[in-house]
């Protein structure tokens, strides 16, 4: 169970990052921002662009530094791209329909989601691209007889590109003559060991990032002027407006913050699973929405709790079912997630940490 639990927590942390954007936007204008998954996708692509073009190895920094710096820059770019996009979309598409009712708003959001998906397909193609993994490059002069770990042999020029490695020698396999031969032929420069981080390590980083972001968000929402304004608007928009709170600016700030956190989620998701494509935002977005509902939509701790919980459920439940003798249980994990959504909506629509709303006549 333990590996599945860890895997689930890592996936859940990604859901939590994405769910935060849903929950903040819903909390403030009661809109299910269907396009949020696409903000995440655009963020992931921005990160991909940075990782694929930034060549820090040229600076000859000590080893773990280039990868840390490039991922930091990638996260920054992803956050800014997703946040800016969220603000632009809010201004151009959501604000004009804010008073037109919820169906109009939700349909607009669905339209924005499709627009961004198809725009990305048209501009960059639908095929998934390999996401530059957090890998560590070691220059080697001589190779051992047996691979000490999974060994990716790439030519120097390929090392910073997202191209597939020229040769992979699995851990414990002998590095035979063919491998050595191949290296000489592909290696216009020198051969490199490329050590790929194990998935657990990547997921550990994602959890760490969540642990960093959670208090930051808490601080922003509870301890700043803008956060106070956000809470006021989410309680009662017209009363907040009467108190002189600039509603439009507060809503825009909320979208920006949601996009920023979503961009982090996008890079985390793609770096963990190794690819990015224009439709990548849809399913995690939908799942993250499930997570937001599970935790109580509108509640920030709820989004984090719901995300982690959903990740664990999605990973552990199929595992248990498989152990119980159902062989293709993992193919049904999405069904498990959506069934959970329906059950939560029926039994406890305000979620784990939300508060029930009474309808007044």
């Amino acid at each position, binding site marked *: 169970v333990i590996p599945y639990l860890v895997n689930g927590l890592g996936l859940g942390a990604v859901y939590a990052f994405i769910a935060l954007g849903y929950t903040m936007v819903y909390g403030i204008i009661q809109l299910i921002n269907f396009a949020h998954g696409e903000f995440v996708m655009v963020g992931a692509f921005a990160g991909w662009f940075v990782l694929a073009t930034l060549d820090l190895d040229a600076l000859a920094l000590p080893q773990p530094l280039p990868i840390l710096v490039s991922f930091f820059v990638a996260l920054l770019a992803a956050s800014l791209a997703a946040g800016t996009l969220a603000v632009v979309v809010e201004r151009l598409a959501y604000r004009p329909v804010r008073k037109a009712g919820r169906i109009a708003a939700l349909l607009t959001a669905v339209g*924005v989601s499709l627009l961004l998906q198809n725009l990305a397909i048209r501009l960059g193609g639908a095929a998934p691209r390999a996401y530059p993994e957090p890998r560590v490059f070691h220059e080697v002069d001589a190779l051992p007889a047996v691979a000490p770990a999974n060994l990716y042999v790439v030519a120097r020029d390929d090392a910073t590109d997202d191209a597939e490695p020229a040769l992979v020698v699995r851990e414990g396999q002998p590095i035979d003559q063919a491998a050595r031969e191949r290296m000489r032929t592909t290696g216009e420069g020198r051969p490199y060991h490329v050590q790929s981080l194990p998935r657990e390590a990547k997921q550990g980083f994602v959890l760490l990032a969540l642990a960093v972001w959670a208090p930051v968000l808490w601080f922003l929402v509870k301890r700043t002027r803008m956060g106070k304004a956000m809470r006021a608007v989410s309680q009662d928009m017209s009363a907040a407006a009467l108190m002189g709170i600039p509603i439009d600016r507060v809503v825009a700030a909320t979208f920006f913050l949601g996009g920023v956190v979503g961009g982090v989620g996008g890079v985390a998701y793609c770096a963990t699973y190794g690819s990015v494509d224009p439709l990548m935002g849809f399913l995690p977005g939908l799942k993250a929405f499930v997570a937001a509902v599970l935790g109580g939509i509108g509640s920030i701790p709820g989004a984090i709790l719901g995300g982690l919980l959903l990740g664990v459920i999605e990973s552990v439940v199929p595992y248990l079912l498989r152990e119980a003798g159902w062989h293709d249980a993992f*193919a049904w994990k999405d069904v498990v997630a959506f069934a959970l*959504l329906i059950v939560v909506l029926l039994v406890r629509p305000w979620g784990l940490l939300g508060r029930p709303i009474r309808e007044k006549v």
Partner: protein
Amino acid sequence: MATAGPLLAIALSGEQLWWANVLVLTSVYALFALSLNLTNGHGGMFSLGLHGFAAIGGYAAAWLTVATLGSLPGPLLFLLSLGFAMVVAAVGGAVIGIPCLRLRGDYLAIATLGFGEIVRKAIENTPVHALGGSLGYHVPRAMIDPSDSRSDFRLLFVGIGAALVLLVATVLRNAVRSSRGRAMLAVAQDETAASLLGVDPARPKITAFLIGAALAGLGGALAAHFEGRVAPADFSLMLTVKVFLIVVFGGLGSISGCVLAAFVLVAAEQLLTRTGGAVAEWKEVLYALLLILLMIFRPRGILGGREVHEAVRDAWRGLRRRPA
């Protein structure tokens, strides 16, 4: 089978074939639009599960056709499979609808959306030898001898589709005007007020939801028979969005608007596809953009929620009133 006799003898030119195709697709989308218009327009419920019900209907019709092919006369089997599709889709509607209809607004939308995704994923996960899995499932021709040329069955389907749409639209128009229909409209407008007036809000909502599910199933079944194939990919959320676009374009709550908008948008899409080139490649982008612009500038549809004849009458009056 000499079912449709002389009709089948007509050979169609390429241009006519294209139009036949457009007309059949129009009737499929018109059925979907009427379903969505009933639940979301007249019924006031926000459901995004149409693609799930369409999938259930399409697969039910396909399964019944495969299971009973040869043991029944073709036309009977065809009609039976349509009826079966409606019943199974309505059962699906009951499974999700009865517990979920007490959910408010967008929560219902999300629950039905989740249902649609569950249906699609479940079909994808079926073993290949049962329902074809993600590859899709072949639907044998029930109505005509397979050795007949493809053009003939299309013409037959034009007639069947038009008849179905006309029938459904008429029944719906009368149903909405009946006392139960008015109860439904009242509930849709204000549930609390309607229940204070003595209307039980649950019954009309459930009825409308089930009929809507059955109609979506009917559309799915018609499409399955026409295409000769069903696949889970055909029943994605994109289908529901397209139908929503049609309904909103025609005006939520307008029955004739649904049919007209189905024709306009299907013909436009097919034209774009036929023209090819850059515009066709940007088709999906245009679709999405159109939906957004429609919601911003004409949220009540091109006709503003009126029936076509009302819109025409109003336009005519407007013209006459203007001094020459």
